[in-house]
């Protein structure tokens, strides 16, 4: 139904802007974006700094682990099987593992590991190991490929990572819920703005018409976001930074306000000295936030359509250093969390008896994980995005 202004005025007495907006006929491209009822969503969660994977998914069944980590070893992790266990601060994640919602892929990295944070992040972001880092990232190219400016949003920060940069677009960045509020301090009569300023299609002027449609759409999205902001209290999130960022991502997915992919990070994993307590605290923050997010998705009936991919730019050295910390390493496990994953531990155990230059050796090229997520989860052809044919993994 196409609503013109007269219909609006005739039928609008007492109508709030919300119901009015909901009844607006949207242009097809917006309908397609708003519909997407079967869309899948992805959180890319970057543990920045290089997470100590050996103290996260712990090979406690390997004597070498205990010898390499005389002071940092976790003697009694939360067992996943008779060989591996999770850090004790990851209790909620363990429960989800038991419920078949966690897939771990061991030994993920890239050839010729580089121990610089920047270089390593560039490689992960660009999905390229070429000496000259490309200017685009894997998710940016995916957005190009899908012709969807809103495929990926940075959530919880204004810094758009290289991973999100495409040839022409870098998605959007949302720092906090205030970035999705339709400010109206002067109290303009929003109904009047919509009724007169935005209802009338601007025939013959495609540019004005495009702005008009986009403005209506943005107001509508803000309103949906506000509903979900107030409605999301049923699931308590921990009051941590990561908790807030994942809550915002949840809000975006639930309200279908923006992206299909949210890029979130948790900083602080660069633990060179006296790492036991701070590393445990980071994992505790991760555990609480991730669990609340998953519970929220369950409550909204979205759990089967949302997947969280957790990675770090590298693991750390197998042996602890003299400062009771760990130094920059190489390959490490990545984690996928969702009821939709092929749960369990995938890939070979880290060979602590065959370290390469002090590090766990590479088993699976990281681009195979990207190819899996793109192909199996987002339904985007991975070959042009990842830059070659990388066999997908049985994770999803």
């Amino acid at each position: 139904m196409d609503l013109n202004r007269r219909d609006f005025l005739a039928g609008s007495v007492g109508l709030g802007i919300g119901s009015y907006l909901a009844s607006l006929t949207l242009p097809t491209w917006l309908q397609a974006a708003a519909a997407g009822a079967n869309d899948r969503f992805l959180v890319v969660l970057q543990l920045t700094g290089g997470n100590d994977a050996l103290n996260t998914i712990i090979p406690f069944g390997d004597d070498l682990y205990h010898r390499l980590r005389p002071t940092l070893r976790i003697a009694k992790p939360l067992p996943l099987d008779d060989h591996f266990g999770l850090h004790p601060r990851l209790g909620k994640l363990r429960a989800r593992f038991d419920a078949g919602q966690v897939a771990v892929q061991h030994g993920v990295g890239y050839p010729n590991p580089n121990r610089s944070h920047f270089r390593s992040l560039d490689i992960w972001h660009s999905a390229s190991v070429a000496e000259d880092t490309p200017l685009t990232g894997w998710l940016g190219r995916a957005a190009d490929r899908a012709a969807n400016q809103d495929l990926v949003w940075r959530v919880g920060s204004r810094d758009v990572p290289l991973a999100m940069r495409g040839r022409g677009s870098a998605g959007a960045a949302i720092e906090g819920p205030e970035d999705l509020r339709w400010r109206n301090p002067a109290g303009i009569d929003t109904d009047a703005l919509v009724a007169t300023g935005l209802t009338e299609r601007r025939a013959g002027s495609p540019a004005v018409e495009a702005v008009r449609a986009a403005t209506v759409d943005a107001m509508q999205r803000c309103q949906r976001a506000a509903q979900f902001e107030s409605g999301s209290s049923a699931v308590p999130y921990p009051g941590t930074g990561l908790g807030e960022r994942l809550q915002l991502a949840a809000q975006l997915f639930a309200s279908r306000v923006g992206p299909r992919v949210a890029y979130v990070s948790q900083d602080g994993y660069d633990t060179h000295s006296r790492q036991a307590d701070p590393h445990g605290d980071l994992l505790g923050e991760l555990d609480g936030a991730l669990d609340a997010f998953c519970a929220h998705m369950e409550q909204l009936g979205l759990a089967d359509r949302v997947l969280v991919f957790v990675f770090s730019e590298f693991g750390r050295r197998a042996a602890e250093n003299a400062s009771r910390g760990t130094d920059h390493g190489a390959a490490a496990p990545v984690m996928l969390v969702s009821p939709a994953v092929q749960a369990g531990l995938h890939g070979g155990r880290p060979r602590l008896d065959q370290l390469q230059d002090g590090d766990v050796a590479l088993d699976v090229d990281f681009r195979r994980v990207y190819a899996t997520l793109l192909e199996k989860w987002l339904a985007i052809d991975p070959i042009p995005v990842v830059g070659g044919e990388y066999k997908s993994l049985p994770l999803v």
Partner: protein
Amino acid sequence: MRSPVPPLTPWQPTSGHDWSRRKIGHLLRRSGFAPSATAIQEHGERQIHGALHRIFEPQPSAGDKTLDSIEKTVLGTKDSEAYAAWWLQKMLQTGDPLRERCALMWHGHFATSDAKVASGKLMARQCRLFRQHGLGDVRDLARKVTRDCAMLRFLDGNRNRKDHPNENFAREIFELFLLGIGNYTEQDIREAARAFTGYREENGRFVFRKDLHDTGPKTVFGKTGNFDGDDIIDLCFAREECATFLARRIRATFLAAEVATPRYGADVDRQLGQELRALDFNVGAFLRRLFESEIFFDPAHYRTLVKSPVEYAVGAARALEVRVPADQLYDSLAKMGQRLFAPPGVQGWAGGQAWLSSARVVARNQFASRIVEEVTAADEDPKARGVRLSQLLFDDFIPKEVRKVLANGKHSDAQLLHYCLMLPEFHVA
């Protein structure tokens, strides 16, 4: 069918009244930013030729003088946000807005990001290059860009050595700067990369290192010689595709996203390119021809360009004569999707409807809602104020119902202004 009209046929007024409010607004929005009431009055005085004279032989404003006097200090700042703020201040106050609009166009065309360059000084120097030479001979500008330190850092000039050529820069020159995809081969790129070997940035200066330069013969576009970088630029400009490609950029910035009428033939960009070449690639001369042409004032091209965030926000401040702190403006623009000196990729900002993603429109509204708080309430009858805003911001060219809302006298000043700044007509030029 009638034969096409050459696009740059001079526009001929049929009477003195033809130099209308709408045409003045159109010219000023395109050649600069949304004009203030004073600017409209001044440019309306002596027909189109008087207006063009003001645009192309501009008088510096008081703000220009102050800002120019501190530019050197700002140029030395480590942080690129400082020069960006200075530049925005310049856009807000300058008497020569066309210069800044051209610089902004070249910043998006020869897109370079501080995210990789990591030097405020080098970004500022590149911007200065665009500001100083953006209206001149674009061949000269292109040669200067090949020696620009920010560009050399951005496209890996220092990795391009005789023994290990790096194609990054050569590829973008062909694909994004001068020719466009499909007008060269991979072999052309490999050979052209060799011509640029030895072009380096060392300690913030351009150096040509002969020992790293490949002096062997190269074959580009079927021509063979011991080419250097300048030769490659010349070889590009010798081709018709180059003029067409640059004319397309200028057309998309100043005329229309797409030519909206068949009146000027099917190959307007090629024709415009021929004009550009006939004018010795002088951008200023070309724009002057464009701004007095039939195609420019063709009603089909009125309000066909979605304003970039810079055009939108700077225009709002200039039109309403509001002071906006440049650092706040910088942040607002970043939220609207246009962080200066940090275009999203080598292709620059996608522009057009890509500016209209939801988060960006929300950011435009946040800007609008804040700027109206800065306006000194007009000492004017609300009805008269509404009528005046309709003229000032919209050339009175908005749906009748909207004009009625503006003139009904029921709204506070802030309400009126916020309403106006969120009307779709204000977001297009």
